């Protein structure tokens, strides 16, 4: 048997084992809990899909803004100007040290009392600010990991700071930080469930609502878990794909 086949066999055994464990859990539980899958999720599928769509929407927007915020502050942290550094560091310190749940409440009820914002906008603002703080740290690390010699070389040939970042530092930073960024964005998708606290109709909220309305809690929670897993697993695959695309062999 060659090595490739052996690897596949091991993979197969690992998956079979996991499925068996899950099956035993399910079987044990169904002895006492009357699972009724026809009702939940299938009868309520449209609602779950709406929640799924909302989660997807706030996740995509927040990933975009978190990336923009993280890039701006990450670059500021590597700046030679102390004031930019201080500003960026303060931002990170504040948002990394407050729980996301509290940020959501402050943004929605605090800012929301000054200007009318919808729950969706409140959630996107909170998630972007919170995750942006982590992203900025990741990007800073990526920029600082570029060997110093390259910066010196760029300066010697007279490259401006703008092009130093655009052509030399950021592209390399992106490549090295891709795994960390993917992990952060997977966290973001899961963290978006906290937006249910402001009654935003996203996946978790819908799941809880159906659990209460249908007297079928576990079916609903398991359904929600499967939906989240779908998004995060896809993100993980996408991350792997880009890692391979950008890898220097």
């Amino acid at each position: 048997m060659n090595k490739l086949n052996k690897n596949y066999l091991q993979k197969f055994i690992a998956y079979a084992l996991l499925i068996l464990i899950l099956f035993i859990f399910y079987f044990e539980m169904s002895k006492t809990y009357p699972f009724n899958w026809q009702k939940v999720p299938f009868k309520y599928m449209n609602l779950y899909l709406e929640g799924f769509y909302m989660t997807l929407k706030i996740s995509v927007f927040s990933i975009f803004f978190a990336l923009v915020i993280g890039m701006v502050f990450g670059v500021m942290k590597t700046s030679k100007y102390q004031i930019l550094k201080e500003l960026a560091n303060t931002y990170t310190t504040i948002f990394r040290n407050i729980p996301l749940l509290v940020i959501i409440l402050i943004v929605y009820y605090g800012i929301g009392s000054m200007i009318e914002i919808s729950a969706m906008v409140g959630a996107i603002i909170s998630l972007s600010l919170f995750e942006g703080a982590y992203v900025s740290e990741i990007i800073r690390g990526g920029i600082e990991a570029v060997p110093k010699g390259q910066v010196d070389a760029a300066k010697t040939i007279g490259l401006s700071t703008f092009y130093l970042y655009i052509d030399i530092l950021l592209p390399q930073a992106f490549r090295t930080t891709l795994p960390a960024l993917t992990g952060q964005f997977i966290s973001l998708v899961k963290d978006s469930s906290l937006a249910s606290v402001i009654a935003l109709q996203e996946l978790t909220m819908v799941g809880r609502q159906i659990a209460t309305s249908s007297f079928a809690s576990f079916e609903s929670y398991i359904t929600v878990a499967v939906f989240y897993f779908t998004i995060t697993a896809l993100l993980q695959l996408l991350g792997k794909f880009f890692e391979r695309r950008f890898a220097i062999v």
Partner: protein
Amino acid sequence: MKKLLVVLSIVIFSVVIFGGKIEEIQKRGVLLIGQDPAYAPFYGINENGKRIGHDIEFAKILAELLGVKVKFVITNWDGIIPALMTNKFDIILAAMTITPERALKVNFTIPYYQTGQALMYNSKKYPDGLSIKKVSEMGEKVKIAVQLGSTGEIAARKFFPKAKILTFETVDAAAYQLITKKADAMIFDDLYYGNLVKKYPLIKMDSSLLTKENLGIAVKKEDIDLLLWLNTVIEYLKTDGTFEQLKQKWMIDYKW
């Protein structure tokens, strides 16, 4: 007679200074109702996401009488009274228990529903039945499952201060603890029993209630005209049998 006159003049006076809330609603064309996401069988959602339940149908009757449409504004339970006070909606019609503390912030109508907290247990674990007295005698050894933040939780803590209270997000999850014997008893609205026993035939309910609770509509302090009108409507619907029908339909017949 004199007293009545004084009361009447105060009522009329306040209506005059604060203006008519009913008029405001009718001009707007929409009655805004505050509720949290779901509390079946009073209000929940059906397969299409439409709001259904006892209080939903009651709300529609109110809107019809006012000649306006009805709109449900969804907030979380812990922020529902502040939201009423800041005009996010006109009334809270959400199976709210009338309590003296809440009545300091909002005005309550007369009760439109009376419910009670009941003791439920696993009939296989306790074939001879379980009563409030027996549970109190068990002291620290007893574990009681409740829904987080419900009046059942408050009642459980008050009546069984020594017991271990386990909190869950849904009634269903709490009831499941009885089946798996992780909890000895569960304290919940007695009207849930019908729905729970359909799913878990082993669950039994003790016939004597721990507490009785009145549910009312909460109205902003200054909306006296609306309050008086709602009281009249509730009295009317009680007499003409509408509430009987609603109870039969949503609490007993409907399969949640």
